[in-house]
């Protein structure tokens, strides 16, 4: 990984090596915990399942430029499962898009800049406001169509929750992207297998999930969604000369990953944390995850 050239004109950013990525993932979890501590609650489980995905994208894979957040050839990131936006805020803060001072203000009073779901209105570096599920893949597909039309080499990443795949609109977009040969579009499914009410597949079955996407005309990759090395490899799709098909990465994750008492526990989708729990969380997150 370290021998990869930095993406051109990317504000001089050098992609992190594997150890640095692991440390950045740890920092991301702490930033998220700091935001939720300020608010008194948060979507811990939903955030910690996609920490490594976000870290791989923003610290190795994507071409973004904090000095010019709207530069036309930047890679786009559409956070469709937007209730985990604090992971994005951390990435944008650590990449220099947003000030660190915003962390302790998170959701604390009228007029602050950070809330549960990301918003282009307040946060430079955000490519699409979100919150309502089922929207992001369509928006990303539209951006990917424009990129193809403009013959630009940038890529569009869309992060979906697995529960979000219950939304019919996702499958409208899933049918659309292969028709337009959007090999510049990468959908990532955070397959943590839990939604608000329980096991995703008990609430409404998704399996056989990979076959579903294949049957819609997508390339499908399955990956351990906490394996940074594997994530970087699979997400860094060719800028030109791709397969002619959009790619979905089914990232097998653990909701609440990194904090033992949160891992795979339904109620930590969104919950209030006690001071004792917060202290235990910080102890567990004092070292990068193995």
């Amino acid at each position, binding site marked *: 990984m370290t021998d990869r050239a930095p993406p051109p004109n990317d504000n001089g950013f050098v992609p992190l090596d594997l150890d640095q990525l692991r440390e950045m993932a740890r920092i991301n979890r702490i930033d998220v915990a700091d935001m939720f501590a300020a608010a008194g609650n948060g979507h811990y489980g939903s955030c910690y399942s996609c920490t490594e995905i976000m870290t791989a994208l923003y610290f190795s894979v994507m071409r973004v430029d904090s000095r010019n957040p709207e530069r036309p050839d930047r890679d786009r990131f559409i956070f469709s499962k937007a209730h985990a936006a604090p992971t994005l805020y951390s990435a944008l803060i650590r990449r220099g898009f947003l000030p660190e001072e915003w962390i302790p203000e998170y959701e604390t009073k009228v007029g602050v800049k950070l809330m549960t779901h990301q918003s282009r209105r307040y946060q430079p570096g955000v490519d699409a406001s979100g919150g309502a599920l089922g*929207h992001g893949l369509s928006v990303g597909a*539209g*951006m990917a169509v424009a990129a193809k039309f403009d013959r630009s080499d940038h890529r569009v990443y869309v992060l979906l929750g697995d529960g979000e795949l219950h939304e019919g609109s996702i499958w409208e977009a899933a049918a659309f992207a292969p028709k337009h040969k959007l090999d510049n579009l990468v959908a990532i499914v955070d397959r943590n297998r839990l939604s608000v009410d329980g096991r995703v597949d008990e609430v409404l079955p998704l399996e056989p999930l990979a076959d579903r996407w294949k049957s819609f005309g997508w390339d499908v990759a399955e990956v351990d969604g906490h394996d940074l090395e594997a994530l970087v490899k699979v997400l860094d799709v060719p800028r030109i000369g791709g397969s002619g098909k959009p790619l979905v990465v089914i990232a097998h994750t653990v909701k609440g990953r990194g904090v033992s008492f949160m891992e795979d526990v339904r109620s930590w989708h969104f919950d209030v944390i006690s001071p004792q729990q917060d202290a235990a969380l910080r102890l567990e997150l004092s070292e990068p995850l193995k």
Partner: protein
Amino acid sequence: MSLLDDPKRLGEHVADFRARHPKKPMRQEFGAIMLALAERRPDVFAVTADLMYATGLVEFGARFPDRLVNVGIAEQNMIGVAAGLGGAGKLPVVCGYAAFIALRAVEQVKVDCAYNETKVILAGLSSGLTYGVGGPTHQTYEDLATLRAMPNTIVIVPNDTVQAALAMDAAVEHPGNTPIYLRLGRGPEHVLTKPGDPFRIGRANRLCDGDDVCLVANGALTFEAYLAADILRGEGIAAEVLDMHTVKPIDREAILDAAGRVDAMVVAEEHSRSGGLGAAVLEVLEDGHDFPVARIGLEDEYPPIGPMPDLRHALGLSGEAIARRARLLLDRKRSRRGR
């Protein structure tokens, strides 16, 4: 006997008035508008949900295949894809039916376009009753209420095909990162507008001057209000007609100016009486007014089966009905004043 009280003479008068104002169909004219737009603006994309034929885009598609995005029968995706195109610097024009833009995909309009500050032109054809015998699933009388209540939207109801072209030009030139909804009809409608007529978003056009009553209308009902003013002239009543093509932002100045002069106001629209133009006018007058305001629109019930334009007229959306209502308001108001 006055014209309004003489059915035979009124019928002849109205038929003659209508005959003097030829009709043009929206679908074909809209296709021509889009084609001309694509020719002059290389950033324009048409986005449709299997309504290429229905919105007159066949030639557009033949000439600019890369700029016609047909998403299939998937309206949520249609709006999302359009928002993505808009976010990438293109000028997407969603070409669909009003019901499927403003109701089926209303959350995508809110979140992906309005809240997300993305300019997308939403051309909703077959609005109001204009689908006629398609029935309530294809008629749309709720769109002004949904889209008007949403922050960061512009809502325009052109009165005919010529004004639709002027409105499209104004929408294209508008600098805001805002979805702009053009509420359009379907079949042939009377044409009032001339190609060089003024059109400014948020600025009503005064079609007739008069200080007795002000008739406010938009869409196809503008012609009916214009007809009503003609009928009222025969009754000795001078009616101002305001073509309130922009429902949001509404032209407060024009309404308050009329409010300072007239003894009554009648608002006519092909929309529910809740939440549409009539409601918007009353919102402007909420600080007080000393004259009656009648809202002519669709009642809180699904319309009966019927072809257009007979269905429209049967539901009281006609020049004759507007004129009667105006005369009634004025008679009441003036008899009270006389007491």
